[in-house]
C-alpha cells in the first residue's frame, strides 16, 4: 500500500491582497489562453498567394473549418513572453532537483546548434553532402567512449528512458542469439521508475532488490536473487540516494558469473566523469543523459537525448543507424544489410538518426570543458552537494547517517516530526523564498525524501544563501509557524493547485463555453 498519499486539494486561503481591475500584479500578467485572445480571421504569417493549379487533392480536400485561432506577430510575442514570465528557470536561480543535473545551459551551445550546416540539413539528403554531420556524430561518440571506457555507442535514442529501452533490447537480443531465454531483471527498490517500466515493456519480469541499511545494494542481496533466469541487473551508480555503490565490481562479477548482463542507468554520471570509467566497473550497457551531464537544455520537459555505450559483448547488437569508425574516418550504417557480417543490430528504435541538435550542443559543452574541465566539474558537483549537506546536517535528518554523499544529498522527513509540516509544505515554502524546491518523495525507499543536487554551476555565495534559507525554514517549522508552510506558496503566480479535481474531472483541452440553456420543461 502506497503510504505517500498526501492532500492534493488545497485548503482555502486567508485574507487576500489588494485586488486590481485587471487581476494583474505589476509585472505578473494574467494571460488568457490563445483560444480566448486569438481570432480565426487573424494570422501573423504572410503567405504568398498560391498559383492557380489543377488540384490533386480529389475528394480528400478538407470540408470543415479548423478551430485554430491566430495572432498577429506583436500579439503572439506578448502572449508567449507573458507566459514565460510565470516560469522558474536555471538562468534565474538554483534548481536543486536530485538526479536531474540542472546545470548551466551555455548559449554558445545554442549558437553552434543553429549553424546552418547543422540546423538546416535533412537526414535523408545524400550522405556525400553531409560529411561534417557524420564527423560530429563520430567525434561525440569517441568522447563518450573515452569517458566511459566502453566499446561502441548507439547514438539514436531520443531520451534517457529511450536509451534504457535500447540497452535492455540489446541485452535481450544478445541472450536470444545465444539461445538463452532468460526472463528476469533485478532492479533495486531505489531505482527510478523508468527502470522497471522499461524492463516490463520489453517483456521482462522485474524482481526488486532491497537496499541495505546504508543505502547501497549489497552483493549478498543480489547473489541470493541470481539464477539461470536472470537476464540482467539495472543499477544506477551513483545511486538515487546520492551514494556510490561501493560493491559495484563484486555485483558485476556475480551477475556475469551467473550469465547475466549489467545495465547501468547513467542519470548520475555527472558525479564521476573523469574520476572513474563505468566500463572499468563491469558495465555492459549504460545510457547517458545528454540533457543532464552534458547540459543540453531541459526546455520545460524535453527534448532529451540518451545515447547508449556498449561493452564488447553487446556491441554487435547495437541498433541501426550507427557510425562505424574506420581507419580513415567514419561510415554511416543505416540498415541491417549495410551492417555486414560482424554486426547483428537488434533493429531500429527511431526514424532518422537521433537528436542531432542535442549532439551539437553536447559536443560544444565537451570541447569547452575538455578533460580537465570535466573532471573539475565532477569534483565541484560533489563538493557542492557535500557543502550543502554539511551546512544542514545538524538540522535536517539524513536517512543513512551523516556520511559523505556524491553529487546529491538526501534527507528524510524525520526532522519535521511533530511540527505539522510535511515535506510537501516545506518545499512549497521554498518557492516563496525564491527557490525551486528540491526533488521530493523520491527515492521511494526513504520516507518524505528531499533530494538536493546543486551541480557544479552554483557559486559558494549561491550555496550559502540556499543553506541559510533552508536553515531558517527548519527553525520556523520547529517553532510552530505552520501557517506559512500550509499556505505556501503565497507569492508565486498561482497558489497550490487542485490536482484532485484535475484528475477526477480531466479537462485536457479548451472547449468553447456553452451558453446557458434553460432545461426544457
Amino acid at each position, binding site marked *: 500500500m*502506497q503510504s505517500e498519499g*498526501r*492532500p*492534493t*486539494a488545497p485548503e482555502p486561503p486567508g485574507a487576500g491582497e489588494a485586488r486590481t481591475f485587471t487581476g494583474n500584479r505589476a509585472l505578473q500578467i494574467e494571460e488568457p489562453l490563445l483560444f480566448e485572445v486569438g481570432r480565426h480571421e487573424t494570422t501573423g504569417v504572410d503567405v504568398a498567394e498560391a498559383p492557380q493549379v489543377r488540384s490533386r487533392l480529389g475528394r480528400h480536400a478538407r470540408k470543415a473549418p479548423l478551430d485554430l485561432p491566430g495572432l498577429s506577430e506583436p500579439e503572439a510575442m506578448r502572449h508567449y513572453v507573458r507566459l514565460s514570465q510565470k516560469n522558474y528557470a536555471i538562468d534565474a536561480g538554483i534548481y536543486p532537483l536530485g538526479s536531474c543535473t540542472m546545470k548551466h545551459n551555455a548559449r554558445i551551445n545554442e549558437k553552434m546548434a543553429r549553424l546552418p550546416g547543422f540546423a538546416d540539413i535533412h537526414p535523408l539528403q545524400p550522405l556525400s553532402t553531409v560529411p561534417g554531420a557524420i564527423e560530429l556524430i563520430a567525434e561525440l561518440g569517441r568522447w563518450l567512449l573515452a569517458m566511459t571506457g566502453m566499446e561502441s555507442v548507439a547514438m539514436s535514442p531520443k531520451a534517457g528512458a529511450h536509451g534504457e529501452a535500447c540497452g535492455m533490447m540489446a541485452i535481450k537480443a544478445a541472450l536470444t542469439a545465444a539461445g538463452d531465454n532468460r526472463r528476469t531483471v533485478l532492479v533495486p527498490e531505489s531505482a527510478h521508475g523508468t527502470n522497471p517500466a522499461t524492463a516490463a515493456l520489453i517483456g521482462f519480469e522485474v524482481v526488486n532488490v532491497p537496499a541495505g541499511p546504508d543505502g547501497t545494494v549489497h552483493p549478498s542481496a543480489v547473489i541470493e536473487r541470481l539464477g539461470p533466469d536472470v537476464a540482467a541487473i539495472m543499477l544506477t551508480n551513483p545511486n538515487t540516494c546520492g551514494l556510490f555503490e561501493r560493491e559495484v565490481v563484486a555485483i558485476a562479477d556475480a551477475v556475469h558469473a551467473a550469465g547475466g548482463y549489467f545495465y547501468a542507468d547513467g542519470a548520475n554520471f555527472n558525479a564521476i566523469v573523469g574520476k572513474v570509467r563505468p566500463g572499468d566497473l563491469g558495465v555492459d550497457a549504460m545510457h547517458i543523459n545528454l540533457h543532464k551531464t552534458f547540459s543540453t537544455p531541459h526546455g520545460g520537459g524535453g527534448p532529451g537525448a540518451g545515447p547508449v555505450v556498449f561493452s564488447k559483448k553487446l556491441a554487435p547488437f547495437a541498433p541501426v543507424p550507427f557510425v562505424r569508425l574506420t581507419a580513415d574516418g567514419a561510415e554511416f550504417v543505416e540498415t541491417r544489410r549495410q551492417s555486414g557480417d560482424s554486426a547483428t543490430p537488434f533493429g531500429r528504435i527511431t526514424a532518422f538518426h537521433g537528436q542531432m541538435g542535442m549532439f551539437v550542443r553536447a559536443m560544444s559543452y565537451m570541447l569547452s570543458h575538455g578533460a580537465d574541465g570535466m573532471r573539475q566539474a565532477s569534483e565541484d558537483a560533489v563538493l557542492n552537494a557535500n557543502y550543502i549537506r554539511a551546512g544542514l546536517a545538524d538540522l535536517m535528518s539524513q536517512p543513512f547517517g551523516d556520511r559523505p554523499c556524491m553529487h546529491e544529498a538526501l534527507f528524510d522527513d524525520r526532522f519535521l516530526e511533530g511540527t505539522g509540516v510535511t515535506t510537501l509544505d516545506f518545499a512549497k515554502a521554498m518557492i516563496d523564498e525564491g527557490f525551486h524546491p528540491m526533488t521530493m518523495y523520491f527515492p521511494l525507499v526513504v520516507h518524505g525524501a528531499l533530494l538536493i543536487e546543486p551541480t557544479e554551476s552554483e557559486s559558494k555565495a549561491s550555496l550559502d544563501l540556499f543553506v541559510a534559507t533552508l536553515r531558517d525554514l527548519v527553525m520556523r517549522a520547529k517553532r510552530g509557524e505552520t501557517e506559512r508552510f500550509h499556505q505556501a506558496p503565497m507569492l508565486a503566480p498561482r497558489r497550490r493547485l487542485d490536482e*484532485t479535481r484535475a*484528475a*477526477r474531472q480531466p479537462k485536457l483541452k479548451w472547449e468553447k463555453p456553452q451558453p446557458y440553456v434553460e432545461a426544457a420543461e
Partner: protein
Amino acid sequence: MTARYTRDHEWIRIDGDYAYLGISQYAQEQLGDVVFVELPEPGKKLAKGDVAAVVESVKAASEVFTPADAEVVAVNTALTDTPALVNASPEGDGWFMKLKLARPADIDGLMDAGAYKSFTETL
C-alpha cells in the same frame, strides 16, 4: 457478518451467498483523494492473491488483491462518476465489487476489526 480485513488493507464482508470487497478506512487515509478506480469485468474469475482492482490517487496507484478464490458478480459503477465515495465511505458506499467466493470459509482466517486495528497501529 462483520467485515474481515487483510494485511493489504482490503475488507471483505459476507452477505448471503455473496461477499463485498473494498479498501479500509486506514487505506483511504493513506492514499489521499481517490481519483479513479479500475474495476474488473463482471464474470471475471480471480484466484487468491490476484489483482482485483487498482485504486488511484493523484500521486499513487495501489493494487487491491482478492483474499480468496472468487468470481466477480458485479462492480460498484457509482465509483466511475464519484470516486470520492471511496474516501467518504470506504467501508460502506465506497465498496468496489460483489463476489461469489469459491469457498466462503476461505476468509475465516482473516483478521477481525479489532485485530486489524491493532495491526494498523504497528505500521
